[in-house]
């Protein structure tokens, strides 16, 4: 016997959470594009997609956000910090890869300086993950030692029932238990079996890839140029990635006042490393793509002991030229054999 949340009760749960002051967020398909978005009612949630086009990252690290308001008068500059709002929320229907991505980035946002914008949101969010029963050609969590039902980064894990009428509930954290306590009335004990998990085939051998990347000789391998020849240098992969976390600080304003904003930035852009002098240490697209791979599977784990990839596959899925981490690591696997 396990705790079950039946689909037909979801409606009540959403209302319950909302009346308890939680913003309810979940996968939504809108205008040809899907993302995790705030919903008014359970009907807006869409659990049929493999995963939303846009990752969960933007709920914690928005593409643009104000951090400082300033005004200038005479010689005097007044500033006011713009803090993230206190807004408890529940993200219902996250995917394991997205939730894992958050956990991967936690140490990054907190190792030297604790990024309030990130942690405030992290602390106020309950992440309810639904294990995947289907996957597509781009999913690769298993290659990253994760799984369709990874619990990493999640507060609650739901396993879809075989009959598709609900989910088995596994509360993982105190925060998750609290949130589900609020809807205890709508949960039932039952022995309905869970649906089989999606089969995500292992696409490359991570260990041998990492070993190859760590070999300094391979830094200048011509492989990088070949693999990235068709890369057009957009930021679609980095911006959709649940773990890519680079940002830029921009001031926007007029003579009298303005706002300092934190905006996503991407190592795929040539401007990312451009010096004021005009010199660019990463002057080619292949150097930039190498940086992205090295960072995810060599430098980041070197610092935080975890790969900066949760295997969602968005980089390949949405790449305008059908590139991505999968292809690159597959090719590296071949090289390292």
């Amino acid at each position, binding site marked *: 016997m396990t705790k079950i949340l039946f689909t037909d009760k979801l409606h009540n749960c959403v209302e319950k959470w909302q009346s308890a002051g939680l913003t309810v967020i979940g996968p939504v398909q809108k205008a040809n594009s899907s993302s995790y978005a705030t919903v008014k009612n359970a009907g807006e949630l869409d659990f049929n997609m493999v995963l939303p086009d846009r990752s969960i990252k933007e709920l914690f690290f928005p593409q643009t956000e104000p951090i400082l308001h300033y005004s*200038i*008068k*005479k*010689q005097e500059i007044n500033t006011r910090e713009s803090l993230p709002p206190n807004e408890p929320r529940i993200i219902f229907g996250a995917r394991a890869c997205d939730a894992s991505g958050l956990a991967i980035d936690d140490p990054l946002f907190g190792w030297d300086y604790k990024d309030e914008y990130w942690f405030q949101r992290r602390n106020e969010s309950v992440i309810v993950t639904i294990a995947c029963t289907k996957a597509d050609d781009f999913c690769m969590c298993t290659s990253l030692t994760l799984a369709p039902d990874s619990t990493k980064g999640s507060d609650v894990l739901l396993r879809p029932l075989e009959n598709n009428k609900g989910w088995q509930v596994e509360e993982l954290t105190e925060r998750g238990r609290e949130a589900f306590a609020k809807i205890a009335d709508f949960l039932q004990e039952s022995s309905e079996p869970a649906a089989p998990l999606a089969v995500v085939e292992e696409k490359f051998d991570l260990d041998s890839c990492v070993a190859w990347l760590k070999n300094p000789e391979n830094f200048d391998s011509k492989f990088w140029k070949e693999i990235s020849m068709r890369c057009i240098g957009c930021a679609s992969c980095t911006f959709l990635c649940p773990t890519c976390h680079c940002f830029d600080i921009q001031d926007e304003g*007029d*003579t*009298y006042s303005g706002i300092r904003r934190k905006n996503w930035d991407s190592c795929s852009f040539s401007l990312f490393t451009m010096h004021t002098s*005009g010199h660019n240490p990463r002057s080619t697209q292949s150097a930039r793509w190498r940086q992205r791979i090295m960072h995810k599977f060599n430098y980041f784990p070197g610092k935080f002991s975890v790969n900066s990839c949760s295997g969602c596959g968005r980089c390949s899925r949405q790449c305008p030229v059908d590139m991505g981490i999968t292809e690159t690591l597959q090719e590296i696997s071949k090289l390292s054999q």
Partner: protein
Amino acid sequence: MAKIGVFICHCGENIGAKVDCSRLAEALGEHPGVAVSVEYKYFCSDPGQESVKKAIRDNNLTGVVVAACSPRMHEATFRKACAEAGLNPYQCEIANIREQCSWVHTDKDMATEKAMDITRSMVEKVKRNNNLQPIEVPVTRRALVIGGGIAGIQAALDIANAGQEVVLVEREPSLGGHMAQLSETFPTLDCSQCIMTPRMVEAAQHPNIRLLTYAEIESVDGYIGNFKVKVRMKSRCVDMNSCTGCGDCITKCPLKKIPSEFDCGLGKRTAIYTPFAQSVPNKPVIDKANCIYFKNGKCKICTKSCQFNSINFEMQDEFIELEIGAIVVATGFQVQNNAQYGEYGYGKYPDVINGLQFERLASASGPTAGKILRPSDGKEPQTVVFIQCAGSRDPSKGVRYCSKICCMYTAKHAMLYAHKVHDGKTHIFYMDIRAAGKGYDEFSRRAIEEDEASYVRGRVSKVWQENGKLMVRGVDTLLGKPVEIAADMVVLATTMIPQPDAKEFAKTIGIGYDEYGFYNEAHLKLRPVESSTAGIFLAGACQSPKDIPDSVAQASASASKVLALFSKDKLEREPVIAINNEATCAGCWGCVLACPYNAIEKKDILDRSGRLIKRVAFVNPGLCQGCGTCVTFCRSNSIDLAGFTEKQIFAEVMGL
């Protein structure tokens, strides 16, 4: 850190009455980067300017905004004052709170608010102004005068007499222009050729003047002080060096019935010809369109008659390249073809002629040796009707403007006729008599009072032939009655119009023109002899209808402008020019196409070993006039315009 001084002028009551200057000064004092914000009754006055200078020195100001009248009034004044105080003059901007604020608004609060916005916006601009330096360009001290009529000759002589080199280009075989065709000139009635031909000879013989006749301007490149001009020397088929101008060839030429252009078709000429007896140079050309040899490959009689072997049928057009510092355009005018006025019968009745044809009849050197004879039968007309404004001041069929000289020349024609045909009768139909000018009204009064010209105020509605007479029907609007006159000859006071190719030619040399094709002066009142293109000046009737004194005066004025330009080795120009960022330029050449002045060139960027890295746009500072059309085109924002940079304009908008 910017330290801007804001100087708010009351302009007496002009600004002070509608803009609360104290509030304005106070508000601007609070503006970021403003170090000084003061008001004063008249900043343009000497004490006002002194106070600006003092403020600059005392506060080490980095920029100045004078909120006052239009920059078109006093920008130069205050820039000069800034320079005197040691500040780069281009660090001064004017906020126009008079013409575009206090004078046009009634609500004091709203006017004050607007004045604040205007001034703030200029403060934001001036913070981003750069220290600009005037651009220096070298000057080639050689003038080109285009057109060998009286205006061109006068300009050429004035410049040459001042010791500067001149190239005088005339497209006809001889100098002279229209003035050479005239009989006598108003208001003195002295003989046109008597005063004209000595000047033609003087121009031809002047050591500083290089005369190129039967030549046309092929192209003009470059810019003020540095024009490159290509001249096409049309082939005369007569070698100018060996020909002595004896005229044997002309006598022998079997084709003798070609209508003479110089005589407006009233006389005849040969195929090898000089336009008129006093031509300068007095050497013939072959009219290839009519010459028998050029038509069927036989004849060459002239060759046999020439003792000097000067005739060469194989002669080709040649091109001369000239380096020129300044250009005087004196390309003159044409007379309108009156055939469009069917009611006057011009072109239908041979005895309906135009004013220029009458000049040829009255000229001692003309086809009738100065006798007034009808073209149809060679008889002396006893009654002549003159019709003024034949084409001018007529928006429906002619031109809207007044042709200016017709009143005077018609009066002159009536007088000349009266002097030659003592019992003849003249009737002049006119709209108004415009005789402003020294001795002009007296002259036209003389025509009426002494030479008994009968002026009829009214228009002619029809001219037709009846019993060997030209019947002229018109209306006398003063009597309010129709009139009908049986005339022997009708003379139309034809409008002066631009040369038929005036617009095309303007494009060749790069100057502006009006809807008719008259060339535009830079400013109608204050810069009447300069074209809108620096270094190109205008003289004579190519700009607008003019009489001889006006043409000569303008020619001398142009000459003085040229001489002023030639008085310096280098020329200073406003530094408002485009500059390209070669690092970001992608070399798409949209700017090259967009530039109205061909000021943008392609420049190769080479590496140390001379290998081409890329090709970028380069703005020639001598040619660029600073319109900024290229800047707007440039997608990558690589080009910018000094004085109106992207940063400045952005700041202006953001300061509003």
